[in-house]
């Protein structure tokens, strides 16, 4: 496996919605490379035929009765919002200004 590059780190930062200055990209590149190098022992194992474990304690089809229960009132749900308007969360422009 080729080592993680500065370009990889910059790309991943974009995916993760983080902005990293060039110095931080440099530091993260070498730190992530060291961690991934340590993980090479795992990468190198032949695990063909071994099923993955995504969850330690298997519970299947956990459902509750389809009954309406108590939920947070609108005002409480919005109480911590940085900005709210008309009972909704307000955010900056998403699609550009209306014509």
């Amino acid at each position, binding site marked *: *496996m080729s080592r*993680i590059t500065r370009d*990889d*780190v910059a790309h*991943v*930062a974009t*995916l*993760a*919605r*983080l*902005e*990293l200055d060039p110095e931080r990209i440099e530091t*993260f590149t070498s*730190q*992530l490379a*060291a*961690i*991934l190098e*340590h*993980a*090479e*022992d*795992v*990468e190198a*194992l032949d*695990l063909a035929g*071994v*099923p*993955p*474990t*995504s*969850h*330690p*304690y298997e*519970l299947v089809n*956990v459902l*509750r009765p389809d009954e309406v229960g108590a939920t*947070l009132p609108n005002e*409480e*749900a919005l*109480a*911590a*919002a*940085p*900005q709210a308007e008309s009972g909704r*969360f307000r*955010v*900056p*422009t*998403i699609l550009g200004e209306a014509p």
Partner: protein
Amino acid sequence: MSATDAGSADTAVRIAAAVRAGERSALDVLEGHLARIDSAEADVHAFNLVTIDSARAAARAIDERVAAGEDPGPLAGVPIALKDNLCTRGVATTCSSRILEGWVPPYDATVVERVWASGAVPVGKTNLDEFAMGSSTENSAFGVTRNPHDLTKVAGGSSGGSAAAVAAGFSPIALGSDTGGSIRQPAALCGVVGVKPTYGLVSRYGLIAFASSLDQVGPFATTVADAALLLEAIAGHDPADATSIPQEAPRLLERLDEGVQGLRVGIVSELMGDGIHPDVLARVREAAEALAAAGATVEEVSVPAVTYGLSAYYLIAPAEASSNLARFDGVRYGLRVDGATTQEMMVNTRTAGFGDEVKRRIMLGTYALSAGYYDAFYGQAQKVRTLICRDLDAAYERFDVLLSPTSPTTAFDVGAIHDPLTMYLNDICTIPTNLAGHPAASVPFGTGADGLPVGVQVLAPALGEIPMFRAAAVLEAAAPAKGAHP
């Protein structure tokens, strides 16, 4: 320099019994603990927030209920500290992160509801590594928590604030969370008992998620009995958590005195070698001898796949974290840093709100899950998780519990470890348990040559809390003089 005063503090078992019997006032008990907080918290910094007024109101309410002939419950009047990643209705919950600074949850975590319902008196929210990512409580946006045994040392992490609060006598019990060792390692470094329960035994509802398939809430205490008392109070099925095991909480306290006669104990060979300090190894061997002297059979056992635990964990946990922490985007709660567009606002908010270690793990997880690397990293790590489960299951065919160090060393100096990978190595003994979903307890067992506490880890199979607590109780009784408190 030290701030341990646990010797003069009483246990939760004794406090609750006396308060329920009307022999002691919950308010008096609380004031004693608030006085210790007042004298040493400035040095230790165990708390992000001390809730003095609500604690006094809660203690008065307990006293009134006792006076009215009511029983407030099994934790009646016992002060408790809550890790600041557990949601508390009306009380700020920060995860020690700028991104949640000032956020006040509109609901209580299930475990918080349960400690209230058991009559406990919450005294505050404890410091942690930001979003529980760390092994030293140095990654907090609100400052380092220091080890009450030696203020130049770390308290461990990520639940360092809860461990330090109990070690300093600020509260006899505390709640923490453990994703890769975050209860057990700080418990070991602070010389207290810490338990990570079986995955699904304790509700995660209202625990702010780090890695959902690994996270579990558990108790800190000065005694094994107090840890059992608190675990009984918080365990048991919760319909609000789909991963909650649908069964009742185990009865632990009544089983503590059963001893270990005939119990089969395995020492995990792979965790008894490279990278573990000789003092720690010596204490674990002495602990094994103590169990043997009490009637257990003790042998070494090889669990080969645990050597891959660290690598698997540091792919799986960041992958889950990168997904879980996507919710912190400045839209619904917490910090918002404005931008011209919503995407810009999200980038600005996350860039300003998260600290370096959180960013590093989000990056690592995003990379491990990204196109072209998923199979090599995340997929492979999940298969290794299967190997670890299989090897542990094989060991538990021959043994009831396993024994290992909790942490490779005693508490290290604040500021000593800068390299992330070196810090991650602190979790080498505790991680396999989380990957397998098993329970494990750290019990104080003497000190290193530096005079600092050493923790011995007792591991058990899923829902093996009863033999685990029985072994822990025997170790506690056999541990070198408690005068370990400097």
